[in-house]
């Protein structure tokens, strides 16, 4: 998967690149709208991550033009401006998602994966997980043909860990994903343990869940 990162803040762009390369994406970096234009003419991209606050051109204008050059790419708008109109305009212009800065790289990747799933048109996005299968689209966990009932939050948690498999996730990162901007990290992160305990309890009835690892002092990780 090829990603074009259009971001004038170099520190930010480099970290995104670093993360996405590790996650198996191919990345191009453009710090200006001009450079981005050149990249877009050269080749098709699967994802274009666009910062709206570019020094040489209005981000929304860049988006409008990019949609002409690279119509098949998926667009995620990144911005610190966070104005409501920008968000609405951006989505109107055909952006697939909108991520206000500062955002978590894990959140970025999970949004990218969600877009891929949506675009691939697969009704059933099935991921194997040990002896279980997880359907990320209709939010079910199956052991054979047995449906394991997880609460909404429990499934959110499992799904997020699965998307970020083989990565240690802190309680804070997990709680931020689940409770979003309302979360009070210190307070809510304690509840992650309760939810993990429930997930383990519900699933070990059928098969071992040793893929769900506790990382001491950090949080949790799904290792497959």
């Amino acid at each position, binding site marked *: 998967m090829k990603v074009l990162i259009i971001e004038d*803040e170099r*520190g*930010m762009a480099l*970290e*995104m690149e*670093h*993360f996405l390369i*590790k996650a198996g994406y191919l990345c191009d970096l453009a710090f200006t709208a001009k450079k981005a234009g050149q990249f877009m003419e050269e080749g098709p991209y699967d994802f274009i991550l666009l910062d709206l606050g570019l020094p040489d051109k209005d981000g929304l204008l860049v988006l409008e033009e990019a949609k002409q050059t690279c119509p098949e790419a998926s667009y995620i708008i990144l911005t*610190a*401006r*966070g*104005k*409501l*109109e920008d968000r609405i305009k951006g989505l109107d212009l055909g952006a697939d998602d909108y991520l206000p*800065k*500062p*955002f*978590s*790289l*894990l959140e970025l990747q999970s949004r990218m994966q969600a877009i891929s799933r949506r675009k691939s048109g697969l009704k059933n996005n099935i991921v194997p997980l040990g002896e279980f299968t997880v359907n990320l689209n209709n939010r079910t966990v199956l052991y054979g043909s047995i449906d394991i009932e997880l609460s909404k*939050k429990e499934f959110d948690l499992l799904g997020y860990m699965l998307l970020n498999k083989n*990565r*240690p996730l*802190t309680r*804070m*990162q997990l709680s*931020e994903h689940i*409770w979003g*901007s*309302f979360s*009070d*990290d*210190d*307070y*809510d992160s*304690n*509840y992650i343990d*309760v*939810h993990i305990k429930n997930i383990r309890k519900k699933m070990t009835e059928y098969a071992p869940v040793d893929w769900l690892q506790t990382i*001491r*002092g*950090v949080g949790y990780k799904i290792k497959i």
Partner: protein
Amino acid sequence: MKLLTKLTLTTTFSKVAIVLLFVVLLPFLIDRVAFQSTNKLLKQQAEKVIDNIRKNGIDYYLQGDSSYGSYTLLKEEYISLERKKNIYTADTIQTSQRIIEGDTVTYRVLNQAFQFNNQLYELEVGRTIASISQYNSPLQKIALYVLGILIILTLLIDLSFTRILLRPLKTIIQTKILNPVFPFKESPPPVNTTTVDFRYLDKSLIALMDRIKEDFDREREFTSNASHELMTPIGILQTKMENLMLLNDLDEMVQEKIIEMMKTLNRLKKIVHSLLLISRIENDQYTRQDNVQPERMIRDIITELEHRLEDKNIRVSVSVDTQAILKQMNHDLLFQLFYNLINNAIRYNKQDGSISISDKVTTEGSYAISITDTGIGIPLGDIDRIFDRFRKKNSHEAESYGLGLAIVKCIAEYHAMRLEVDSTVGEGTTMTVIFVRNLMTLQ
């Protein structure tokens, strides 16, 4: 005392004082006028007599005698002429008494000496005082009545005119001080008045409002800019830390340190987020077009907070009209408002406590939703300050950033809602959100 009353009282008081002085002085004045005109009359009489003597000779009066006297029937006037050897007194006009036919009468008397045919004569003309001063008291009375009526008339005129004069003051106070809701959107138009002083006051108030608005705008802009500028470095730090965490051979201690850093950064992020939210609300960046069913929203929030309720074993009872609809709301902001209030009700509650959420229509017809907890309560002196930014209910409460209620207040103001706090320390707190009457309908 009202300015109108004060003005009317002073003018009336001074008028009454002047009128009373005039009425008291009236007899003296009349006397003076009367004396003067009597004197004039006496002089004319005397001249007439002397004229007659010149024309007709002294015997026209004396007829051979050495003296002549005559008075009118009612003795108001008399005249006497006497031949004298020597005259010692100068010509005078004075008030003195004369005895005429046994009656003692007070006269104004003119004495004049003159020569005729080498003979000295003294002429005396008199006129009674009684006839002069008998009008004093009726005149005084009439003056009193007339002036009294005049005072009442001017009082009425003064009252109505002052009222008209002072009307702009009322308008100024209403449009410049009472009506404007802070933050001012735009300065109201100047009040139309020809009174320079009021114009000055009005202008000064408009200038003051403009200055306040300017300062407020500047502060608002600063908060908004500062928050934006802070977001970028926070974002870079966050991604750097996240990438660090993904390194494979991380020392456990290093990992712990990174997590601590991420937590601190997250806290900073939350604070900046909250400030930015407040500044966006203050900058009118949210629409108010949603219809919200408060009952459903509150149930959603409770589901969202289930884990916290379970943790403290708190019972929640909701009795909110399922038919109620709040109009012209911003759904997300209203959600945030109730989320923060209910979250606080849990946060500051006791183990095994309870929360009750209920609605009612107040006596003025407004719709109100109350959230009552059985928590630690707020000391009376602190209630005014709980909505201030970075002011915590409880200083050793590490979990809060002190912005939750500031956000609540900001959202409430944005929707023209009122907030009421009622709290007893150790027993609990009731937070009431009151919606403007026309913003609520029943399905």
